[in-house]
């Protein structure tokens, strides 16, 4: 395949990771990105590298990716910190769900520990009183996504990849036409996140808005990325809007507070004060000390959300030369590296490290046709 042309459209963390892998495999890579590299959803994300166990396919992809992240753990600008994930159970009912989670994680080889109430407060003394306990996943980590995307693009460029500051207008029979008027010929990989429909209208994609708040520096207040066990319901449920307690200690000593979810296909970036209030109230319930801290900035971002919540990774149904890697919802930082390997293996017709079928865009062919 050496020397074959691959045009990667979109330089978020997913496109950047794919461009890096493809250039390493010897492809002649051109990246097309009109904005800042990593400036889309990637710039808004918390950057929590997390093994979510509620969907077996996503868990496999996350686990695979977490292994690949080790190669970037020493990159200074990645700000990699292995703070682990502490899942908090509000009550006995939530705590009762922990053994099943441990089992699902253990099945793919991820080590996690049940945490009783006493241990919980040893791990995070600032948590609200009377929480039941939880679960600790020590190998989970956090990174700074936009800088990683920039780094991956630089790696690709060092191997000869070009970065074109342009916007793809439409796919042609054998390439892609750009807004600037040029047409590029070759295999095309579409990694445009929320904007997928512009180029591939047959693949359903929605934008799921999220709010985040960053505080001043309060070193020592929090040590683990700490989430409520109900987070998965918020993340993967289909409610129109939801919030969950999800806070992260930044390497700077700042606290990054999430998370909210609501569909917003118009992608209005404005902060919604009612949504912000809901999200903060939820976080105060678990971490009352937050109330008195000073916030520096609130921002919003949009998670690219496919019809079933799983990313599309693979060949576009009915198109010989077009591939897709998009729709990673709230896990795209975690799963970008695995996505790139999974895609390249398919492109090179090699066996894949994990089952690619759950991510095959063709899974929707029936739905779309119907």
């Amino acid at each position, binding site marked *: 395949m050496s020397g074959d042309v691959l045009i990667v459209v979109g330089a978020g963390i997913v496109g950047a990771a794919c461009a890096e892998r493809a250039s390493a495999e010897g492809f002649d890579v051109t990246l097309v990105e009109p904005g*800042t590299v990593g400036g889309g959803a990637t710039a808004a994300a918390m950057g929590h590298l997390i093994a979510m166990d509620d969907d077996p396919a996503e868990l496999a992809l996350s686990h695979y990716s977490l292994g690949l992240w080790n190669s970037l753990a020493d990159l200074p*600008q990645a700000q990699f910190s292995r703070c682990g994930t502490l899942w908090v159970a509000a009550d006995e009912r939530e705590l009762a769900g922990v053994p099943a989670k441990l089992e699902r994680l253990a099945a793919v080889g991820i080590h996690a520990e049940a945490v009783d109430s006493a241990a919980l407060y040893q791990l995070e003394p600032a948590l609200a009183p009377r929480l039941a306990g939880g679960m600790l996943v020590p190998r989970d980590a956090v990174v700074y996504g936009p800088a990683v995307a920039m780094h991956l693009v630089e790696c690709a460029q060092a191997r000869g990849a070009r970065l074109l500051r342009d916007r793809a207008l439409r796919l042609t029979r054998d390439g892609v036409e750009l807004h600037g008027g040029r047409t590029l010929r070759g295999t095309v990989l579409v990694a445009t996140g929320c904007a997928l429909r512009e180029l591939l209208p047959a693949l359903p994609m929605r934008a799921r808005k999220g709010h985040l*708040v960053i505080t001043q520096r309060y070193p020592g207040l929090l040590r683990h990325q700490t989430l409520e066990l109900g987070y998965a319901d918020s993340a993967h449920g289909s409610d129109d809007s939801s919030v969950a307690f999800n806070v992260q200690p930044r390497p700077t000593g700042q606290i990054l507070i999430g998370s909210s979810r609501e569909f917003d296909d118009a992608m209005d970036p404005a902060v*919604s004060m009612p949504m912000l209030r809901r999200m903060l109230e939820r976080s105060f319930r678990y971490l009352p000390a937050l*109330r008195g801290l000073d916030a520096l900035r*609130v921002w919003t971002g949009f998670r690219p959300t496919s019809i079933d919540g799983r990313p599309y990774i693979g060949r576009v149904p009915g198109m010989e030369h077009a591939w897709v890697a998009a729709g990673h919802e709230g896990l795209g930082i975690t799963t970008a590296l695995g996505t790139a390997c999974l895609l390249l293996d398919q492109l090179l017709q090699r066996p894949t490290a994990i089952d690619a079928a759950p991510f095959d865009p063709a899974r929707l062919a029936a739905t779309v046709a119907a």
Partner: protein
Amino acid sequence: MAERYDVLVVGAGPAGLAAAQAAAGQGARVAVLDAQPRAGGQVWRHDVRHAPSAAAARGIHDGLKPPIEWLAGTSVVAAQGDALLVQTPQAARWLHYGNLVLATGARELLLPFPGWTLPGVVGAGAAQALAKQGWPLAGKRVVVAGSGPLLLAAATTLRAHGAHVVAICEQAEASALRGFAAGLWRWPGKLLQAGRLRLQLAGVPYRGGTVVQRALPAADGCLLRAVGIAGPRGTERLACDMLAVGYGLIPNMELARLLGCATQAFGAHAAVQVDARQHTSLDHVYAAGEACGIGGVDCARIEGAIAGLAAAGAAVPAGLLRRRGHARAFAAALRRTFALRPQVHALASADTLVCRCEDVTLGMLDGHADFRSAKLATRCGMGACQGRICGAALAELGRFPHAGSRPPLFPARLSTLAHAEPAS
């Protein structure tokens, strides 16, 4: 219960106070709020040792006279619909308005140069404010530098509080200053004021065409000891304990931007765009004074009065509009006189800090095409000041403009951000 005002004025400087007075005169329910505990803004800032001028005392008295409600120490955090979320040191609340008047004033333009982050180096306006708050200055040797009439005002205040003003270094060429002085007859009030300042500053060298190139630390490396200046007479070193340096004023745009008001260029910066009635591009929002472009105190008074009348639904007398034109012409002449010379833009070197909050040097920004890219890669502008200082400096240096504003408008308690709006 929701608090609702016909006219809500943000900023209790000359413009905001004039707006409140004018709107209240029309029978509107008016409130004025300011983050500072005392009204007066920058020019009329309270002085612990000296009584206010008659104009300041009257302006403050009339602008806060009941039934006008005065909300001291109240900062705007966020906005939604027709309401502002505000916080005081103790509490948070939502204030609803029929019409809003933005009189958010200006701040100093600080530009990076080697040594500008040394303790002992402060803004010229900040030095003036510190003096008025009673900061001990007796016998301190101060160099006042930068550009604009604020330098004279700062030097006067510093002197009145016992400082020894070593020199005033004005970057504008002496010839430009003379040309400006010759045209002052058009604004007799200003001529008088200039004469008065001159008397108060008798004996202080006022050096045109002179810039501070670097601030030099004492042997221990951490306190200011001298400044290196360059002017028509070559380079020189002036021993001092304090450097008060500012390169003029730029409009405070955070709230206007958060609300989504249309803006216009103000040099390399931005100002709120308004029509003849001080109406912004938004239906219920007016703006007056420095927020619309630096115009000085007279201009602020006139624009405040116009905005207050318009926001209260009253007619604006033609005389006021004429006087505004005259005042704005003075401001334009000032700007031409004190336009920054290229030399000022070249003071910082690659290893000079530009973002003090996050320790980012100018050189670290090389290769970034816009502020967003630089910010995401280097954290420039991500700190407590959210790019207020470095963003303005980078725009002035011709690197990239800094736009957009996110809540909170300044660091605010999380409990404030979660403060529920009362059902109205």
